[in-house]
C-alpha cells in the first residue's frame, strides 16, 4: 500500500522555537544600555537600575500574565482597565467601607479573579473570540471605575500601604516571574497550554481539559492585574479611574517583542522579560538623555514592527531550508 498522497499544503513546521529571537533581543538590549550609558545622565547607577525595575513592575506583572494567555492563542485587552477598577474598588473598600487595608487588598485580589472569570466564562463557555470579549470588558471595567468615582473621585493611598510602592514590589515581581516561568515551562499545566495554543483540537483529542486551562489563564490575568493595581496605588500614592491607561498595550508589546507568537503555541517568560526591559530601558534612557517620552514610544513601535518582520523572515527561511 502506498503512502497517502501528501496534501498540497503540507510543509515541515517551522523551526521549533529556538531562542534566536531572544539572542537578538538580548544583543539589542545590551546595545541600548551601552548607548544610554554614554548619552544618558546618571544612567550608570544603582539608583537608576532600581528605578528601571521599580517602574516596570506594574506593566511587567501584566506582561507575565499575558504571556500564557497569548500562548494559548488568546489575548486580554482588559487588564489595563482592570487596574483602574481594582484600584477604585480598593479605595472604596478601605476608605468608604472602613475595612483594614490588608482585608481590602485581599478582597481586591478576589475581585480581580472574578473579573478574569467573567472573561473566561464568555471565552470558553460561549466560545467567543478573546479579542472581542476583552475589548468589551476593557470598556466595561474602565466604565465601572469611572462610574464608581463619578469621573473625578480619587483615593489617597493609606500610609501603611505605601511600602509596597517604594521597593517592596520588586520581590513581588521576582516571585511572580518565577511563578509564571514554572507554570509555563515546568508544569504539566504549562505543557497543556502550549498544546492548546498549537492545536486546540489536537489538545482536546489528547484528553487535555481545554476549557479549564483557558479559564485558568484569564483568571490569573485578572488576579495579577489586581495585584498590579495595588502596587500602582502604592506607587502613585493615589487611586483614580484613569489608572493603568495604555498598560495593556505595553504589556502586549513586551510579550510580542519577546518572541511570543500572537498565534499561540510559542512563548517564553524569558523572552517577555527581555522585551519588558528592552522597553523600560529605552524609555528610561530616553528620559535621562532628555530625548523625550514620545520619541521613546515611537521607537518602541518601530522596534516591535522590526522584531515581527525579522521573525517572519526567519521563519520563512527556516521552513524553506527544512523542506
Amino acid at each position: 500500500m502506498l503512502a497517502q498522497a501528501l496534501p498540497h499544503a503540507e510543509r515541515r513546521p517551522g523551526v521549533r522555537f529556538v531562542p534566536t529571537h531572544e539572542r537578538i533581543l538580548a544583543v539589542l538590549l545590551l546595545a541600548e544600555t551601552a548607548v544610554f550609558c554614554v548619552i544618558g545622565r546618571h544612567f550608570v547607577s544603582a539608583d537608576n537600575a532600581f528605578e528601571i525595575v521599580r517602574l516596570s513592575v506594574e506593566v511587567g506583572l501584566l506582561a507575565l500574565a499575558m504571556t500564557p494567555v497569548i500562548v494559548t492563542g488568546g489575548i486580554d485587552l482588559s487588564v489595563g482597565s482592570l487596574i483602574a477598577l481594582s484600584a477604585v474598588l480598593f479605595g472604596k473598600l478601605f476608605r468608604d467601607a472602613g475595612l483594614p487595608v490588608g482585608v481590602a487588598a485581599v478582597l481586591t485580589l478576589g475581585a480581580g479573579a472574578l473579573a478574569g472569570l467573567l472573561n473566561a466564562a464568555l471565552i470558553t463557555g460561549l466560545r467567543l473570540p478573546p479579542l472581542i470579549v476583552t475589548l468589551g470588558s476593557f470598556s466595561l471595567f474602565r466604565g465601572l471605575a469611572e462610574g464608581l468615582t463619578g469621573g473625578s473621585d480619587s483615593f489617597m493611598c493609606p500610609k501603611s500601604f505605601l511600602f509596597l510602592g517604594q521597593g517592596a514590589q520588586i520581590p513581588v515581581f521576582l516571585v511572580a516571574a518565577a511563578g509564571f516561568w514554572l507554570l509555563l515551562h515546568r508544569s504539566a499545566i504549562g505543557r497543556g497550554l502550549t498544546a492548546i495554543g498549537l492545536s486546540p483540537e489536537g489538545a482536546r483529542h489528547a484528553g487535555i481539559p481545554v476549557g479549564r486551562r483557558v479559564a485558568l489563564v484569564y483568571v490569573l490575568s485578572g488576579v495579577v492585574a489586581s495585584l498590579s493595581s495595588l502596587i500602582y496605588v502604592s506607587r502613585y500614592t493615589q487611586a483614580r479611574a484613569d489608572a493603568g491607561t495604555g498598560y495593556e498595550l505595553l504589556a502586549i508589546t513586551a510579550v510580542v517583542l519577546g518572541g511570543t507568537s500572537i498565534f499561540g503555541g510559542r512563548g517564553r517568560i524569558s523572552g517577555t522579560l527581555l522585551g519588558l526591559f528592552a522597553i523600560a530601558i529605552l524609555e528610561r534612557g530616553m528620559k535621562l538623555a532628555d530625548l523625550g517620552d514620545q520619541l521613546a514610544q515611537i521607537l518602541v513601535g518601530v522596534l516591535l514592527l522590526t522584531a515581527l518582520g525579522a521573525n517572519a523572515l526567519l521563519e520563512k527561511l527556516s521552513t524553506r531550508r527544512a523542506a
Partner: protein
Amino acid sequence: MTLLSVSGIAKSFAGVHALRGVSFDLLPGEVHALVGENGAGKSTLIKVMTGAHRPDAGRIEMEGQEVVHNTPERSRALGIAAIYQQPALFPELSVAENMALGFESGGLWRRIDWTARRTRAKELLARIGARIDPDAPVSALTMPEQQMVEIAKSLGGRAKVLIMDEPTASLPEHEVGNLFRVVRELKAQGVGIIYISHRLDELYALADRVTVLRDGQSVATRPMKEVERPELIRLMVGREISAIFPKREVKQGDVVLETRGLECRASGIRGVSLSIRAGEILGLAGLVGAGRTELARVLFGLTPATGGQILLGGAPVSVRRPSDAVELGIAYVPEDRRRHGVILELPIAANTTLAILRRISKGGFLDFGRENALAASYVEKLAVKTPSIQTPAGNLSGGNQQKVALSRWLATEPKVLILDEPTQGIDVGAKAEIHKLMVDLAERGLAILMISSELPEALGMSDRVGVMRGGALVGTLSRAEATQERVLALALGHGEGAAA
C-alpha cells in the same frame, strides 16, 4: 470524440510514488467510475486533473488538445470541475452569489446585477431539479442542498467534465435517489462524469465504465456491466488476503467494554450494542459516513452519548469528555493523524506524554527525565525512525507519526484501545509493524476496537467484524463467517434493496 484523457500519469511526493502510470479516458455523456482502495491514488489523480498538482510525467488531453501546464484556473476554463465531500462554498454569502463568484467578467468596479445573478442561479438549479432559494445564505442549507449548489455552480461554469468524489458519503439515504437523478440529467446533457465511490451498488446503478486503480496504477478499464462484483474486488485488492496478516490465536478473557443501545443524537449514532473482550480485536467495517468514527468519538467522550449505556468491566460508566475516557482507561487513536493524532510542532517526547501529563509530573511539575525515558522506550519498542526524541512530529513520515500517536495512547496503559484507520496512508513496512504490534497488545490483554476501511485489513486482523451502516451496527460476523462479500453486503444494506 473523447472528452478527457490522461495517459501515463506519474506523481511522487518526497520519494513516495502516489501515481505510477495511470491512463484513463472519459467520453461525453458517460459516467465513468473510478475505484480503488485507500491510497490507491484516486485523490492524487483528481488533483492532477484539476491542476492542483503538476504530474511528473504523462499527458493530459482535453477534447483532443494537449493540456500543458495545467493549473486550477486553466482546468476550470477548459471545463473541468470537481465536487468534494466538503463543499467549497462561502457560508455567509447567498446561493446566487456563490454561484456567480468566479464566473462574472469585468473589473472590480463593475456593477452587480443581482437580478441577473438570481435568474442565472434559478436556471442552473432548475437544470438539475433542485428547489433551492437563490437568496438563502449557504450556511442555512443542508449538506445535500449545498452539494446541489456546487453541482449547479459547476454547470454554470460550463463544465464538460464533472468529477464527483464520494458524493453520497454525507447524504442521508433518501437524498441519494435525488442525486442519481441529477447525474442522469447531466449525462443526458452530454457532461462527462467521473464518479468516485466505494459503494459498489451505486456504481452498478449509474456507471457505464469502471477503471480500477491499485497502488498508483490503472489496472483495468471495463464496461460496468461486464465485470462482476467479486472480480471488481479482486482487481482492487490484487492479492490473496491470508498471507499478509500476522494474526495469531489469542486467548480471550472477560468482556472489557460493552455498550447497550448507545445513542448520540447529534452525530447520528442509534442503538449500538457491542462488546469486546480482553485480548479480542473487534474490527469495525462500513462505508464512509456509516458512523464508525462517530461511534469512536462517543466512546471517547468527544461527543457524549445522549442515550444508552457504556460499561467497563461490567460497571456502567459516564464518559462526558475525553479526560473521563482517559481516566477510565479508554484510548482513542484518531483518524486525522496530522490534526488530532499528534501535534506537529511538538517534539516526539512531548507528543508521547501529552495524555499522561499528571503521571510524569511530581507535584505538578514535569519530570523531564521520566518523560525522555518513556519516549525513548516507545521509540525503541515501536521502531520509530527519528534522529532524536526532540524532533518535531511534523518532520516524521506518516508511518512514524502514527507510531508516535500510538505511543501516546499506549503510555496511558489503557484497557480499551480504539484505532481509527490505524494504517491509512502508511507504507507497507510500517503497516506490517503496526499490525504486529496490535497482535502483541491483544496478547497482553487489551481490548481493541479497530475501525478500518480496508477490507483485507479488517478481515485479516479481527476476531470478529462488526459492520455499521447509517449510524447503527447492522451485523457482527465471526472470523470464520466474515468474507468481503458478506461484509460489503451488510455495509451496503444488500437484500434490503439498494438505493434507487
